[in-house]
């Protein structure tokens, strides 16, 4: 196993999305490329852009400076630009094997997608009339609109996947039957059975499971369950059920959780949204009895104290004696977890684990029956959507290797970059996180309209520029002369003398490019150079500009941090090249457009004190003076180069260039400097 060092966001993502890759594409205004990067690993980007549990954001090192990059919102921004658009097509050649996938939740969908792209015939079986599992029935539409889900599923199915809905595993199809018709079976039926607490009165009418409730609401056959509803649990299902009740017109909704807010799996943001909508929360209380004649009237709770940490790392709630209290309720929703349907599994002849799950041999999802694989909730118990997707991906890979008799490969192990040193975080400029706007409260409590909107273009560009480009920084090659200039210029104090050459710690480098521009040996390279190719970029821009404006071409370099939305002004004669901080421009980069025929060069930089990297602007000014001298010496004239701040200055500069006329390199006539 070979460790590959990746940014923390990518290492944290269960499907290892190249987060930095797509965020930087958004930063430079290329949302299409961003989506392409996302789609390489994720066939459900608009779904994930809404409801992903975003471990990437928990891992994001921006949080060490201010707040994590709003990665999920950026994913949604990119994904929503082309929902359901196909990026990949089925391969022309295909394998003969046929695979049955049972269950069309996130795990089954990703497996179907991957296997279809590998060239297998895939048939997807689903018990319900619609595909998507929990995505279609379970996650409320105010968080995840159903047409989004269906469009993304549509794109997956369009890869040539055969779909059989209304077919229940164990009823309409059996495992034996499937094994007769297919070469492999992948079981991803999820875990749809709500767990019921062992207390008196749980059978009273008016006490029901949160999962079932949410499914019924999504199917459209559920009214308000009562006037006063108590929801028991602290996961997404509990909060979803509570917020759904509000939308159905329930006047009093209380969520009771046995631990504190800190331990709550749903997350603080979800709780905050629910509270805004009028949901009440009671922490550290566990139900001990449901009271009522035939229908529930009250629930008795005991206060809990948090004891020793459990296996999960969360502290175990211990009921406190004599702390009982009652909450009145005409309906109780249980959302304390759910488990697979053990009967279905047992009947199929598969080995059943402790909580009714399918027992698999290893992480490939192979079961003890040859050719039968299983993954997702049905194997592990409830997991997040993105984890389920990852499990589907692994299973698809395992099925492919099983068919092709490829030995289980040693997966490359992704290792996260270390955290930033405090000396580095102290030098990083703070930048406010962009939050998506929310539906007004009144609209939220009366409709199932989506609560969160996408970031707008400006927000997305600004937010993407907050990314620290972890791991995309500078590397030093063998030409290093150990002159120590990089050590002296780095605003973050990162380069350090190694045994023979300078070494730049990839975990700490902020990718400003200042050292590379100052390196007298051209021995420092930025990993993101490929994404900002300076010279081919200039060639392309100039060629295009020359077609449109044959007389005067002015090349402008502008700082993306100062102008996140694109060029500061649009003028006929001006052609722009975006640069992530002009402090990375070498003298020769500035000179180059003149060599290939530009009439003038305009540099739009930040003000000195605004520079994201502290000293980029100052170093640029020094380099510009140097280039002006060269321009005077060569006969082009230093006045064809200028650093400007505002629009009117741009216009004045262009007028000045018009007076100077065309670049003498093009005419061959030496013009007085």
């Amino acid at each position, binding site marked *: 196993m070979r460790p590959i060092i990746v940014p923390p966001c990518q290492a944290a993502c269960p499907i290892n999305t190249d987060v930095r890759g797509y965020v930087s594409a958004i930063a430079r205004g290329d949302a299409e490329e961003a989506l392409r990067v996302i789609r390489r690993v994720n066939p459900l980007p608009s779904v994930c852009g809404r409801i992903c549990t975003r471990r990437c954001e928990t891992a994001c090192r921006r949080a060490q400076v201010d707040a994590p990059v709003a990665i999920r919102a950026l994913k949604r921004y990119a994904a929503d630009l082309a929902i359901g658009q196909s990026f990949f097509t089925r391969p022309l050649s295909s394998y003969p094997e046929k695979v049955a996938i049972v269950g069309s939740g996130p795990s089954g969908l990703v497996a179907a997608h991957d296997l279809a792209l590998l060239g297998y015939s895939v048939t997807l079986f689903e018990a319900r009339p619609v595909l998507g599992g929990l995505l279609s029935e379970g996650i409320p539409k105010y968080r995840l609109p159903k047409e989004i889900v269906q469009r993304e599923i549509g794109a997956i199915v369009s890869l040539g996947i055969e779909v059989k809905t209304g077919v229940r595993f164990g009823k309409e199809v059996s495992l034996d039957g499937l094994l007769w018709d297919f070469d492999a079976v992948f079981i991803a039926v999820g875990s749809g059975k709500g767990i019921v607490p062992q207390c008196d009165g749980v059978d009273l009418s008016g006490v029901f499971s949160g999962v079932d409730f949410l499914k019924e609401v999504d199917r459209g056959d559920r009214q308000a369950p009562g006037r006063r509803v108590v929801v028991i649990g602290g996961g997404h299902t509990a909060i979803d059920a509570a917020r759904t009740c509000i939308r159905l017109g329930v006047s009093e909704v209380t969520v009771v959780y046995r631990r504190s807010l800190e331990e709550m799996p749903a997350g603080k943001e979800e709780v905050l949204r629910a509270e805004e909508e009028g949901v009440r929360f009671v922490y550290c209380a566990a139900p001990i009895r449901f009271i009522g004649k035939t229908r529930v009237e009250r629930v008795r709770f005991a206060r809990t104290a948090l004891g020793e940490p459990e296996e999960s790392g969360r502290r175990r709630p211990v009921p406190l004696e004599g702390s009982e209290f009652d909450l009145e309720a005409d309906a109780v929703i249980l959302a304390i977890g759910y488990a697979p349907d053990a009967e279905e599994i047992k009947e199929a002849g598969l080995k059943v684990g402790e909580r009714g799950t399918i027992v698999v041999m290893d992480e490939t999802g192979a079961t003890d029956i040859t050719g039968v694989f299983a993954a997702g909730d049905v194997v592990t118990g409830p997991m997040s959507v993105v984890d389920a997707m990852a499990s589907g991906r692994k299973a698809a890979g395992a099925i492919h290797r099983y068919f092709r008799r490829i030995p289980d490969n040693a997966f490359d192990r992704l290792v996260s970059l270390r955290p930033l040193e405090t000396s580095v975080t102290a030098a990083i400029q703070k930048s406010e996180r962009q939050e998506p706007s929310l539906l007004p409260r009144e609209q939220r409590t009366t409709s199932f309209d989506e609560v969160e909107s996408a970031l707008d273009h400006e927000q997305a560009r600004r937010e993407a520029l907050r990314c620290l480009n972890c791991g995309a920084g500078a590397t030093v090659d063998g030409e290093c002369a150990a002159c120590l*200039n990089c050590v*002296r210029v780095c605003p973050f104090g990162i380069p350090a003398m190694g045994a023979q050459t300078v070494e730049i710690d990839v975990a700490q480098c902020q990718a400003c490019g200042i050292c590379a521009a100052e390196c007298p040996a051209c021995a420092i390279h930025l990993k993101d150079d490929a994404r900002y190719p300076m010279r081919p970029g200039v060639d392309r821009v100039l060629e295009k500009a020359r077609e449109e404006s044959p007389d005067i071409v002015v090349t402008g370099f502008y700082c993306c941090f100062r102008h996140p939305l694109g060029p500061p002004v649009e003028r006929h004669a001006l052609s722009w090249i975006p640069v992530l901080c002009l402090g990375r421009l070498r003298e020769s980069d500035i*000179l180059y457009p003149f060599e290939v025929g530009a009439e003038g060069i305009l540099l739009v930089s930040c003000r000195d004190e605004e520079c994201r990297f502290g000293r980029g602007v100052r170093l640029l000014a020094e380099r510009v003076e140097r280039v002006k001298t060269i321009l005077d010496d060569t*006969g082009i004239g230093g006045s064809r180069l200028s650093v400007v701040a505002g629009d009117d200055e741009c216009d004045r500069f262009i007028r000045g260039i018009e007076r100077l006329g065309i670049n003498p390199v093009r005419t061959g006539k030496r013009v007085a400097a």
Partner: protein
Amino acid sequence: MIVAEAKPFDEIKEMVNGYRKVLVLGCGSCVTVCMSGGQKEAELLAAALRIARGIERREATVDAKTILRQCDEEFVRQVRDELSSYDAVLSMACGAGVQGMNEWLRNVPVLPAMNTRFIGLCEGQGKWVEVCAACGDCVLGVTGGICPVTSCPKGILNGPCGGNKKGRCEVSPDVPCAWVLIYERMKERGKLEEFKKERAAKDWSKRQRPGRYTHRP
């Protein structure tokens, strides 16, 4: 370290005027460290020459390259064939490099793009100061590690002279008096007694040129 700086552009341009295909050759040692003659500067000078020649409608083949050291034949030999395809090599090395190159690269003229200035120290990013005159008879052991031969414009061995004004040299207010610096350094080290001792004249015969050195005579 040897510090060199580029000649004025016009002089360089004039020097390579008669040559059609020119290679600007950076040196990867001292002049890279002092930022004046490494790959980055070689590329920049080549670009400037291309532009200047372009304006004059002349053949504009001016390339840039760098080798680790121009002052050793072994390094030069590695690129001899490649360099032979040029009409001239414009060397960004110190005078030693230019002379070595001319010696080992007989078929191509090697021209100096630099003026070799001094043996110096870095005073902060992008700034160097001369500190050693290569006199051949070092006195640093009795001057607190500050060289009066280099840092005093007169090079006197028993200073300061009457030209010292508030610690600055009469030659220029920008130049600190080396002997005041030496006094302060020795005071700091508790060696003022030594400072008061008279220093005998140096053996200037050691500076006879050309200097020679043999490791195992």
